[in-house]
């Protein structure tokens, strides 16, 4: 049998090993021949979810369960002089109080004291009874405040921003600007936005004795939660089982146990009872991460042919008390002469975490608007302008497909050309992402003599349909239907797995599931062939049946002995006491990395009220081989919805004077609703030959820029700051009118 080399993690170190794979198995069945893969597969857990039977962490109730609560800082920056919990400890219903070891708080909402009580209300009341003495310190809420001369420092041992950042240069921007036909200088801004997981962060912790812990966590990484807990609590990882059967959204913010998770376990131990610690919505807004803001000063130029010749960016971003606020620029476009400076800026705001395509939505917004500005200035069609400057050939095809679907050719290219107060316009943006897989997550397949099949893996489903992906792949391999595979995932005891982030889950798990199916089939054939009086290679599985050849090996051109065909159940029964159990690893060749995407949007702008209504989005994407077409479309729809939120509504508002979070609730932090939803048309440019690639992040990226460009095309108002609110549209239109009368 041929061998392939793969890297596995052993005792914390990468190790290269060789695994044997059966001839011909290291490639996917072509879509034209597959029975299951690439079709529209209803999620296996859909009935559970829509009927409310699916148990999320929030739904876990145990006898004697206590409610956990974390008291947060009311100040954006302060030294903690003392914490007095004596009165709170004596309050009715209060079972445990643990102050965090902190000398200083750095943002409004910074966590201070954990409380476990018999009810949430009792816990909150205890919180009110805790006396904390603060020494208020000066603070900064926004990038401009943090960069001002003499600004207060967020951290006493570091400046708010690197005073001497590195400038990366390619080519000769200064010379290129001199020879350019069109030059635009503009400042673009995107706000901090929050993940808004509908199920907040949190977990339920239950101790069994002193060192055994069971945890139900809302997480996208059961193993990283286990690792965090083992380290923080100083117990062996082998004694912890983390369970996530269903979870309500993570978007990059739910990898670790978090302050709240470790606190829940500590409180549970101290109180001698299980503790449920789910963040309140307010706590969730404050402390569970966010997408950093950006402030992008860009000067860019193109020549008369519409080729970008120079790009200069002085970029800033703030992830509050965390770094990681960088973003790509000029994103997907090729510019020969560049100068880029990027600075992370500390502010007294909740810390950023990875959020669906970290950095890309910010970089895409400014890049796409700038590119649009140059295209209009040169009088070049924005689609053609992009094709001239985008080196990716697949995207060239996607631009054409998207333009066709949205009716780009029918539009009047002149901005603001339509009559009346309500004007329509179109815009677009591009995206790229990795989404590759790796050998983090093996899958085991067991076939029982009663014909039932289970697939077991330590991965988790963060809502993308991983359970169904695994079942579908194994079903394809065994000639069964996905609902015949019982998939057990979302527990650390099911084996190792990486976290579900970076759009890597599908590309990591699918090859492992495929190989598990291949090996299971091989074992099954080896075990039952002697009992059927044939050779293993004479057997084939399809449509719930086992077929036997007349003598030669099974395959496309085989001659079948139909009299020997038996059902799957009959075949499994021949196993007798010998169950099949096969483990599959990720191998190269079944997945790859690097996707392309383009989104177009048509909007209607009411130029008298400033309201922007999205009418239609065309989302053209590729993700290699599509496993479940319906779930992939859902994934793209979800990305578009989040993209509309970023483009149109979402913004964390801190009070400039106190750095307090003002809209830490759904009344004022607005997420899109049904009425903001346009018609969404998803177009796939399948590339099955490349294998599986993730699609989680790319669809969230392009709409910020695409929508702002569509608003410009509709009414001539150039919006360089997200979200595109009525306020900004009216201000931009007023600016236009002043220009008009000034001429």
């Amino acid at each position, binding site marked *: 049998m041929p061998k392939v080399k793969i890297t596995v993690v052993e005792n914390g170190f990468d190790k290269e090993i060789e695994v044997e794979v059966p001839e011909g198995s290291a490639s996917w069945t072509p879509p034209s021949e597959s029975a299951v893969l690439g079709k529209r597969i209803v999620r296996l857990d859909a009935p559970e979810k829509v009927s409310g039977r699916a148990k999320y962490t929030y739904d876990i109730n145990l006898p004697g369960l206590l409610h956990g609560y974390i008291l947060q800082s009311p100040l954006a920056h302060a030294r903690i002089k003392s914490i007095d919990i004596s009165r709170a400890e004596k309050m009715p219903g209060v079972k445990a109080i643990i102050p965090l070891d902190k000398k200083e708080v750095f943002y409004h909402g910074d966590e201070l004291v954990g409380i476990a009580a018999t009810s949430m209300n009792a816990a909150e009341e205890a919180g009110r009874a805790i006396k904390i003495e603060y020494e208020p310190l000066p603070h900064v809420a926004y990038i401009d405040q943090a960069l001002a001369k003499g600004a207060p420092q967020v951290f006493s041992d570091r400046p708010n921003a690197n005073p001497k950042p590195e400038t990366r240069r390619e080519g000769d921007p200064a010379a290129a600007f001199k020879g350019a036909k069109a030059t635009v200088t503009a400042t673009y801004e995107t706000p901090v936005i929050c993940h808004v997981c509908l199920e907040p962060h949190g977990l339920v912790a239950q101790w069994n004795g002193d060192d055994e812990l069971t945890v139900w966590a809302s997480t996208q990484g059961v193993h990283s939660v286990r690792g965090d807990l083992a380290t923080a609590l100083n117990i062996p990882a082998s004694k912890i089982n983390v369970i996530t059967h269903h979870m309500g959204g993570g978007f990059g913010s739910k990898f670790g146990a978090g302050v709240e998770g470790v606190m829940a376990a500590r409180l549970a131990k101290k109180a001698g009872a299980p503790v449920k610690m789910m963040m309140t919505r307010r706590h969730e807004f404050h402390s569970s991460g966010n997408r950093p803001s950006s402030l992008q000063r860009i000067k860019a130029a193109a020549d008369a042919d519409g080729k970008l010749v120079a790009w200069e960016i002085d970029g800033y971003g703030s992830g509050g008390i965390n770094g990681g606020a960088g973003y790509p620029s000029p994103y997907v476009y090729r510019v020969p002469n560049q100068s880029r400076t990027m600075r992370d800026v500390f502010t007294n705001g909740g810390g950023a975490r990875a959020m669906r395509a970290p950095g890309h939505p910010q970089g895409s917004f400014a890049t796409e608007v700038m590119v649009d500005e140059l295209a209009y200035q040169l009088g070049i069609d924005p689609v053609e302008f992009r094709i001239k400057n985008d080196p990716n050939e697949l995207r060239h095809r996607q631009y054409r497909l998207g333009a066709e679907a949205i009716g780009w050719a029918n539009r009047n290219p002149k901005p603001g050309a339509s009559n009346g107060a309500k004007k329509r316009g179109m815009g677009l943006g591009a995206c790229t992402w990795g989404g590759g897989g790796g050998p983090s997550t093996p899958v085991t397949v067991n076939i029982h003599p009663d014909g039932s099949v289970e697939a077991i893996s330590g991965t988790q489903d963060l809502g993308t349909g991983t359970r169904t992906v695994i079942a579908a792949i194994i079903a394809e391999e065994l000639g069964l239907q996905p609902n015949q595979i019982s998939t057990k995932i979302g527990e650390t005891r099911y084996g190792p797995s990486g976290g579900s982030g970076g759009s890597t889950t599908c590309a990591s798990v699918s090859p492992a599931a495929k190989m598990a199916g291949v090996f299971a089939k091989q074992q099954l054939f080896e075990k039952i062939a002697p009992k059927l009086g044939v050779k293993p290679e004479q057997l084939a599985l399809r449509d719930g049946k086992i077929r036997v050849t007349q003598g030669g090996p099974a395959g496309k051109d085989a001659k079948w002995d139909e009299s020997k065909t038996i059902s799957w159940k009959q075949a499994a029964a021949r196993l007798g006491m010998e169950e099949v159990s096969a483990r599959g690893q990720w191998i190269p060749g079944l997945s790859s990395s690097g996707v392309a995407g383009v989104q177009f949007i048509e909007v209607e702008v009411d130029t008298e009220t400033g309201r922007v209504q999205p009418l239609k989005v065309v989302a053209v994407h590729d993700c290699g081989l599509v496993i479940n077409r319906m779930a992939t479309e859902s994934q793209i729809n979800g990305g578009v919805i989040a993209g509309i939120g970023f483009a149109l509504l979402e913004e964390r508002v801190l*009070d400039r004077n106190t750095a307090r979070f003002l809209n830490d609730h759904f009344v*004022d932090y607005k997420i899109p609703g049904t*009425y*903001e939803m346009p018609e969404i048309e998803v177009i796939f440019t399948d590339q099955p030959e490349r294998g599986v690639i993730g699609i989680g992040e790319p669809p969230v990226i392009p709409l910020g820029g695409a929508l702002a460009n569509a608003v410009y095309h509709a009414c001539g108002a150039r919006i360089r700051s997200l979200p595109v609110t009525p306020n900004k549209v009216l201000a931009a239109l007023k600016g236009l009118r002043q220009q008009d009368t000034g001429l």
Partner: protein
Amino acid sequence: MKTFEYDSPETLEETFSLLGPDGEGATRPLAGGTDLLTLMKADIVSPDRLVNLKRLGELPSGIKETGDGVTLGALTTLTEIERSPLLRRRCPALTEAASLAATPQLRNMATIGGNLLQRPRCWYYRNSLFHCWLKGGDDCPACDGQNQYHALFGGGPCYAVHPSDLAPALLALDAEVILKSRNGERRVSLSEFFALPEEGRRTETTIREGELVTALRIPPHPEGTRSTYLKAMDRKVWAFALVGVAAAVRLEGKRIEEVRLVLNGVAPVPWRVREAEGELIGSEVGGELFTHVSETALKGARPLEHNAYKIPLLKTLIRRALETLTETEVPSG
């Protein structure tokens, strides 16, 4: 939220005795709870006791037409208002306002009495960490803060805006409020019911301690009176108004005989613009009339740092509301 006692009396007498004079805010009446409970959860008010009004048989209920106009019981829900064919016929502004308020779930719970008494949605007021003037403090943090949703008129010391969509519509419809207390019943016009908060009364209404709103009465309007409510939001639904305009107009031929024009989202109380009304009365519809009137209506506006966009927005809504109401002539005589 502080723990509290809960009573659910069945008679008004018992209710009044429970509401009794036992200190400010200690006992609060509870109807739909869509405002009060959010205030309690945010630790803005912390009553010791809630007195449920929903089991009071004596409160007038529902929407009724009498010789004296239309009466709405205080416990009438926004959903009932939205769905009432009578109101749709008699006072469309109210129907439209109800259908644009909040969400269907909230409208099922929210009552018209509570709607008039709801407190501002100012994000400083709603945050217990800011001891703003309206909550007994010294100043208004919105004044030099994040004031994109704040007042253009009547601001200072408080710059919050009134959150109700129905109140401006009711003002445009010239409604009055019926209040009851131990001492009996009194009726006040809505224009007196709402009053800018002041030093001795840091609320938006003149309701007295121990009083309950029991009903609203919309007087009969002469044949041909039309009304409408327009609302601008930053999301299509489920948002408090950036601004709103309620208007009621009676035309004869092309001449405007009577008009009431009320702005929303611009002041701590619904804001009637009488000078603009004056320009309309007796004028013939057409030409630049509505543009002039919208200028007049916004003449005294004093925008803060971030809310000047409300001015063009209001001008548009005023013009659109008046255009809608005067699109077709009313045959004179």
